[in-house]
């Protein structure tokens, strides 16, 4: 289940050459997750939502404040996995930060594929 489009989140999508169950283990098992993801820069992260095989949400404390990371897992082509990572600050839709404004904002929106 994907949330409504959020113009102020960083979104990364990638196709992984491993089945969804394996990707789920790499993301949901704390020791495995820490091996590739490491620890947040400003304190421990906490799982706020876990739907086995589909979605894991984590808090991710940063120097600028609390943020939230969602990992969404879907079956991909050839038995692989399509992974979507959404990283959002707790400040959705800040008008002054939208690219159409004169205020400094990244060109071309904040959505990208990894």
């Amino acid at each position, binding site marked *: 289940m994907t949330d409504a489009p959020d113009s102020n989140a*960083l979104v*990364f999508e*990638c196709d*992984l*050459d*491993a089945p969804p169950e*394996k*990707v789920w*283990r*790499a*993301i949901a098992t704390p020791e*495995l997750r820490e*091996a*590739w*993801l*490491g620890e947040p820069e*400003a304190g421990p992260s906490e799982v706020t939502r876990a739907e086995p095989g589909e979605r894991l949400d984590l808090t991710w*404390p*940063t*120097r*600028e*404040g*609390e*943020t939230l990371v969602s990992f969404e897992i879907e079956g991909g082509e050839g038995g692989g996995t399509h*992974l979507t*990572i959404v*990283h959002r*600050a*707790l*400040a959705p*839709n*800040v*008008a*002054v*930060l939208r690219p159409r*404004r*004169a*205020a*400094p*904002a*990244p060109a071309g929106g*904040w959505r*990208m594929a*990894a």
Partner: protein
Amino acid sequence: MIGPDIFRALGDPTRRAVLDRLSAGERSVTELRVGLPISQPAVSQHLAALKAAGLVGERREGRKVFYRIEPAGLAPLIDWLGRYRAFWPERIERLKDLLKDMDQ
């Protein structure tokens, strides 16, 4: 964490509405309040929170105070974006490596 929580300051819809109005230019509290369903003291309280987060500055002219966006206040957010734009592609590569090493 360095300084006030900028995300928390931006997390409130009224504060975002106030910032949105200020993005059009300098305003007094009275001008900012027009069209907002809240009292003047409430607007002042939100302005104080935005000031504390470094997002809004003020200028006094006699008894009047004018508020404006403080562009430098957005720098931490731009910095955050820059860091995590680089962070996630790198972590995805590490995840791919880990998946190769994991047992089926």
